């Protein structure tokens, strides 16, 4: 029966609470720690080429993270964020998408970005905020973005991309593109008001968006048990009337399978789906953070054992798709390539002074042009104080 409240009315005559334990959310696992599949688990549908691309992407981000965190410690870049331990969440999900599906990420999704084809040079140019950076050197390191590969430029404020993803996916639907938008965020960002707004909007307006929550246990220092009390994040999707899936975030086959299924469902039914990947943020929040102030080394060591990359590597070897010796040599070579690219990017000039005022509006407004002219005059008077730009003005 329809009613004005848009809710099921099941009448009882004795007062009783309804609690969350009425809802049991299963966690999908396909790949065991030893590289074998669980008995009866969904058979992976991915081919060798895709599997190896997924593996290479995870390895790439691991090596890049290691090198760039070191570069930050050396003072070569100002800031960095690793995705250590979470590589399977973003790589496995990105691999399950069409390459024209939109990606709206938070800031720890370099795996998805690399899977889409963001080049090593592009990573480096952004990290060094040089003049070849697509973002024109305006944002802190790791705030990547590229229109060509359907990867929306990262914004630091948390959760803002969630309602935007709903709108983007709704527009994809209206345009009949048969594409989806994946929206990544952490369990911490899911506390922001934008989370509620975005999920409800997507559900009400039937936007084919995939909300992908990386529940990695920590929002900077705040553990998930001080972030929320409910059963993870997936239970909330049900509250908004959308389907949910929970997966082991270190199991790339499970992440891939779940995302594929979610994508098909979202596009077929024009409905949002929420995927919650259970992971652990093995590194610090960022290069500005030191986890020893809020969690133990023992806890970290425990989670280090669930390494998503070694688990997948074992499976690939068992498939006969990966030669371990050749792989080691390849990783060594990659280390060299990354260091070389770093050395090139750090020598590239910073963006020219005209980019101080470009893109604020499509065309600089007169007041802004005047401010730039005055600034140039000032720099000409004190060239030594502004070495980045003084020698390069017209």
């Amino acid at each position, binding site marked *: 029966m329809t009613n004005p409240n848009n809710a099921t009315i099941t009448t009882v005559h004795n007062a009783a609470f309804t609690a969350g334990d009425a809802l049991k959310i299963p966690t999908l696992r396909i790949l065991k720690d030893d590289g074998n599949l669980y008995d009866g688990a969904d058979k992976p549908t991915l081919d060798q080429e895709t599997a190896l691309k997924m593996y290479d992407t995870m390895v790439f981000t691991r090596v890049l993270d290691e090198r760039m965190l070191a570069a930050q410690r050396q003072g070569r870049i100002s800031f960095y964020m690793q995705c250590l331990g979470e590589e399977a969440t973003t790589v496995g999900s990105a691999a399950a998408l069409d390459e024209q599906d939109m990606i709206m990420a938070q800031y720890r999704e370099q795996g998805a970005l690399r899977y889409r084809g963001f080049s090593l040079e592009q990573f480096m140019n952004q990290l060094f905020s040089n003049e070849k950076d697509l973002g024109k*050197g*305006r944002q*802190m390191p790791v705030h990547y973005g590229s229109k060509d590969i359907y990867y929306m430029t990262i914004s630091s404020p*948390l959760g803002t991309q969630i309602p935007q993803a709903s709108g983007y996916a709704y527009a994809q639907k209206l345009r009949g593109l048969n594409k989806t938008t994946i929206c990544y965020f952490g369990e911490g960002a899911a506390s922001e*008001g934008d989370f509620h707004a975005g999920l409800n909007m997507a559900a009400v307006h039937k936007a084919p968006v995939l909300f992908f929550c990386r529940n990695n246990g920590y929002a900077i*220092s*705040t553990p998930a048990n001080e972030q929320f009390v409910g059963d993870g994040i997936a239970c909330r999707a049900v509250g908004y009337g959308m389907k949910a899936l929970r997966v082991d975030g270190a199991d790339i086959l499970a992440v891939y399978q779940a995302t594929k299924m979610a994508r098909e469902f979202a596009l077929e039914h024009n409905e949002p789906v929420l995927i919650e990947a259970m992971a652990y943020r093995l590194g610090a929040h960022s290069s500005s953070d030191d986890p020893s102030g809020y969690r133990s080394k023992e806890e970290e060591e425990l989670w280090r054992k669930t390494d998503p990359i070694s688990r997948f590597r074992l499976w690939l070897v068992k498939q006969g798709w990966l030669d371990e010796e050749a792989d080691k040599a390849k990783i060594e070579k990659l280390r060299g390539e990354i260091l070389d690219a770093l050395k090139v990017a750090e020598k590239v000039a910073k963006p020219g002074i005209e*980019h*101080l005022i470009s893109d604020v509006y499509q065309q600089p407004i007169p007041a802004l042009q005047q401010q730039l002219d005055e600034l140039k005059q000032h720099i000409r008077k004190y060239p030594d104080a502004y070495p980045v730009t003084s020698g390069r003005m017209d």
Partner: protein
Amino acid sequence: MAKMNMLQAINNALDIAMAKDDSVVCFGEDVGHFGGVFRATSKLQEKYGKARCFNTPLTEQGIAGFANGMAAQGMKPVAEIQFADYIFPAFDQIVNETAKFRYRSGNEFNVGGLVFRSPYGGGIAGGHYHSQSPEAYFAHTPGLKVVIPRDPYQAKGLLLASIASPDPVIFFEPKKLYRASTGEVPEDYYEIELGKADVVQQGKDVTVLAWGAQMEIVDKAVAMAQEQGVSCEVIDLRSILPWDADTVAASVKKTGRLVINHEAPLTGGFAGEIAATIQQMCFLHLESPIERVCGLDTPYPLALEKEYVADHLKTYEAIMRSVNF
């Protein structure tokens, strides 16, 4: 007296306030056990328990609304917004609720005990999401008080006065100075009156006005001008709302010239408000146009931060323009 940096002075102020009054409660993202990402609330949870110093979920609108509720009940919440750049999800709670609580209820209810603390400003390679100076947005909101300290001594006295204030206060902390600014700070309780500017240096040729982290920059510019024989009167505004027009006007009547410096973009910045008021109060005393040295009308940049900021050279140039007009 003890030597403290600004973070230690803020931590000390919170400690004293919590010890003195059980109704003072500190909370925000990572504020609890960890003591905040900058450690301003370090050890407070250990000392006063989880009920009075705690982590919140990651929701600024939630933090602000929660603080409004606690303050309406009569407690004194000191809520931290991790970066001033992230205060905007709380804008509705602050602008429409905090600021209007007393007014809309005809003084039936108020949130007078409430303080929002938030690090603001640039100079840390933070780009546009870790560098903004949003004081002017809040200065445009009757019902709020807006306070910005320049050093550890000021930070402690102004923060204690903010917590004691019968009106809600937004307390912006210059994060660039958190560890860089050190000085002697009394160990006991003291307040610095809100709404009063501080004449930091007497002078006769030109008044130079700023607040927060820009005070250091102004000092450098003033030293340069002094070498050219220009005598500068330096004022730290300290309170942006309400602001001490009388002290500024008295100074400008003496010097005949005013240079205002702030980090935030020029257009709509608080310098505009000051200039309008001072030209009215001091019109016949002015010897030259009031100069504003501010950020450009763009988001705060990263790679070109040095070019963008209202630095000492730009301030020096403005001082010289003013005296040579």
